[in-house]
């Protein structure tokens, strides 16, 4: 299980909205305020808010530990990135193999990318219906402090 921290930012009926805490690949430094990792930080986090059934009486401001199964992350990566890459390269190489010039090969590659994204969408919808790809509540993490 891959774990991460999230904060409860709103509560509506039986549902709480969670905002995941962003971690950086570095330990952050004195130049953090001018670093690309922190650019648009608030907007990015707001965009990644997600709802969760409030089965554990969570309150606004509370920090929780959420988790997602390792297999689900791999399936998500393969769907979002692997599928479009395979169709994109397949279409481009096939076009070039058939004797097409750079322009036609580029058009075929873009067509393959669009087709791959369409397939990814269909597969992601199917996985979502099966309940995969959604982070789950694991335990409370306590108030305040910085996550990571």
């Amino acid at each position: 299980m891959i774990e991460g921290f999230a904060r409860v930012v709103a509560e509506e009926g039986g549902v709480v909205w969670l905002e995941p805490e962003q971690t950086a690949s570095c330990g952050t430094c004195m130049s953090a305020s001018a670093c690309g990792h922190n650019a648009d930080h608030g907007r990015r986090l707001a965009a990644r808010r997600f709802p969760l059934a409030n089965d554990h009486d969570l309150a606004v401001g509370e920090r929780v530990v959420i988790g997602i199964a390792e297999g689900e992350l791999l399936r998500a990566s393969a769907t979002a990135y692997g599928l479009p890459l395979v169709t994109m390269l397949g279409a481009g190489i096939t076009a070039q193999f058939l004797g097409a010039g750079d322009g036609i090969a580029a058009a075929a590659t873009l067509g393959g990318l669009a087709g791959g994204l369409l397939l990814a969408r269909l597969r992601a919808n199917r996985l979502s219906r099966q309940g995969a790809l959604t982070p789950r509540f694991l335990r409370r993490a306590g108030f305040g402090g910085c996550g990571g």
Partner: protein
Amino acid sequence: MIHDLILLMVGAALVNNVVLARFLGLCSFMGVTTKVDTAVGMGMATTFVITVSSMGDWAVEKFLLVPFGLGYLRTVTFILVIAGAVQFTEMVIRKVSPALFQTLGIYLPLITTNCAVLGVALLLVAGKYNFIESTVFAFASSLGYSLVMVTFAGLRERIALAEVPPLFAGPPIGFVTASLLALAFMGFSGISAN
């Protein structure tokens, strides 16, 4: 043609590995390799962005920078193309599946500041490849990056369970392991000599 593409892929992924032979992308190499699964996620996201941005870089180089003699703007322009590719990827994944975006969105901001992405774009220009060659080169380079990330993450997971002398615990043993991995990858350079 297929033979040439396979040679190009082997050269880009193994012989001239972007992390262990060219020493690019070391920040994410040390930072996101504590678990195999997060390394796979980061590797696939980076592979996608590098491949997509290489197409933009190739077009910008061929139709804008070379014809108008703007080579001195290459680095700035490529950074713009990479930032655009990351933004495009983020938008598309959010549109394709909000659930996927929640799961994978964490890696995307990290890619913008990954120097391996710009490094591969500049290597494409030096190689003077056609469209498909440049796309395959970028794909293979990023595949090499992902391979090293996953291998190193696997090694670190095992080291975490081993008894390491206190002096070497943490980052020092990580750097020692990385240097041994780089030595191992140097063995691939013999392929080009024979």
